[in-house]
């Protein structure tokens, strides 16, 4: 038994060592970014690079804010991403449920067709898509950004994969109890998917958060800009505003941290493990 305990301790130590190493690797570039955001532009260019934060964060922020209203930019990005995520969560989990738990005609071809749209490189559809939006007079609107990918194929695929692990018997018993199919979906299936929905929320949020070329051509006025577009304004030809870019990028991480914190609870347990305390 003592042998086993020692083995366990070594195992734990190795696991912690691995996780902590990875955390450090992940954090170094981000730390660098944070430091860069606090330095005046001249010091940013120094070699060897500074490792201790400076005091110019607020100055850099003020310079950034003077160039473009970056707080508004963050607000736009958050608004678009949140609306998109909520809408897409519903649509994706519905479709995923259908693919995981129903048998229907042409199921496989339909699924692979959806998968094929996942492959489409967005950058390359920008021109015809812009044309379409111009005809709808939807340019410079958020809905033009939110709707085209609202039923995100990534989400459908993920929910299909996860919902496969729901035991059929569970659904069958609810069915026998007279629940409608939609009730089965949102009363039985969805609650077991809390951690998957949280992961999907991150995926969807990020998908929208990262979009660049398409919003760039759609959103025309500066008060509609999203974060990537705002940042692209800081890269000129003769001058790249590193200090301001780093401030902007640092601020842009905050909403993601908030998102992780909000979703924290959902990751603690899946239902099959948690809600069945005997």
């Amino acid at each position, binding site marked *: 038994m003592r042998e086993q305990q020692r083995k366990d301790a070594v195992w734990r130590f190795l*696991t912690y060592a691995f996780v902590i190493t*990875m*955390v450090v*690797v*992940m*954090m170094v570039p*981000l730390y*660098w*970014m944070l430091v860069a955001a606090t330095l005046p532009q001249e010091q940013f260019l120094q070699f*060897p690079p500074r490792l201790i934060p400076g005091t110019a964060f607020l100055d850099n922020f003020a310079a950034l804010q003077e160039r473009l209203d970056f707080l508004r930019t963050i607000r736009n990005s958050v608004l678009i991403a949140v609306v998109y995520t909520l809408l897409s969560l519903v649509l994706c989990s*519905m*479709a995923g449920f*259908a*693919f995981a738990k*129903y048998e229907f005609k042409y199921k496989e071809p*339909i699924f692979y067709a*959806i*998968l*094929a*749209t*996942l*492959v*489409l*490189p967005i950058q*390359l559809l920008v021109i*015809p898509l812009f*044309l379409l939006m111009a*005809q*709808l007079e939807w340019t410079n609107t958020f809905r033009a950004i939110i709707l085209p990918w609202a039923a995100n194929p990534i989400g*459908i695929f993920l929910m299909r994969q996860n919902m*496969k692990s729901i035991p059929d018997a*569970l659904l069958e*018993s*609810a069915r026998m109890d*007279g*629940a*409608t*199919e*939609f009730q089965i979906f949102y*009363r039985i299936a969805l609650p077991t*998917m809390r*951690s*998957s929905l949280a992961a999907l929320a*991150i995926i969807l949020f*990020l998908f929208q*958060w*990262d979009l660049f070329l398409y919003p760039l051509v759609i959103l025309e006025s500066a008060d509609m800009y999203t974060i*990537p577009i705002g*940042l692209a304004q800081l890269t000129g030809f003769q001058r790249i505003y*590193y200090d301001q*870019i780093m401030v*902007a*990028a640092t601020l*842009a991480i905050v909403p993601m*941290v908030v998102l*992780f914190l909000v979703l924290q609870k959902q*990751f603690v347990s*899946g239902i*099959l*493990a948690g809600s069945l305390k005997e």
Partner: protein
Amino acid sequence: MATSDETDERVGETYRRRARMRVRRTTRQIRRAARPAWDRVRFARQDLTAAVPTLPRVAYLFIAPFFVLFGLFLAFPVAYTLYLSFFEYQGVGEGSLFWIDLGPVYIEIPQIAQLSFVGAGNYLRLLGNDLFWQSMFNTSYILAIQVPLMIGLALALALALNASFMRFKGVFRTAIALPVSANLVAYSTVFLLLFNEQLGFLNYVLSGVGLGPVPWLTSEFWARNTIIAAVTWRWTGYNMIILLAGLQTIPQQLYEAAEIDGANRWEKFRYVTLPQLKPVLLFVVVLSTIGTFKLFAEPYVITGGGPTNATITIVQYIYRQAFVNFNLGYASALTVVFVAVVSVFSILQIKLGGED
């Protein structure tokens, strides 16, 4: 650990049988627990229930939103790309190409381009183009190393963070997943600085321990690896989150059953975790493969496709043809081929992943 394959088989079978029993029991429990809720709604909705369509039609209802949105917004761009791939672009057009009249809503697609029909010419051209094959090779090279590396790391991290003894899970999870939220311009700039040959931090550290400066961005070999490092840095945490969510949907009872049978750590992983996680693992593999196939931004910003085109990716090549050289027809043909290749690749992965 020294068990032969046959014993492995038998042990596995035992777990699977036990697991099935556990699930059945679990299901009964859930059913019992859920009953009051159903009683409440059952009577109120009984009429409605009768009106609810039979099963397959519900399924179509559930997947309908995707097709409605796709039909409204993406069908045209996709069809147009396909159409364009048989033409050569000759300049901006005039007049109307296509129009839809819905009464109150009137959509007119102007004929945006003057085109001349070239049949399969664009497709033949890409087959004979060196840079196309070079970009295919680069993409495949990056894919072959980056995807296994990243998924291996992500799976290890997800397992570690799912371990019952692990503390500060939330902090670790957030820290590891945070790179994915770094804005691309900023993260590329940081990587440029870290990997700079003369002045970069990485070579500074390496030379400190007596290793020569590595030409991270200027040698073909290292530039590809720099891209791999950057992509892995940004996306490992993301995949970890997905895998973690997958791990958490595995019923705890399965592990308990395995423990009762005296399974060790490896056996639990091999006979419970892996089979249960397979659908999600497959998802991560397919998604990462597609993601890396679509790699564009990192080489675009970090190496610009250089040196000597060693890091130009297929999407970057297409983008260059469309947005720099204005070869819209040729770029469309490339896009069609690209989508076909990656789709086939993904479907193969799913089939080989032993699904269904």
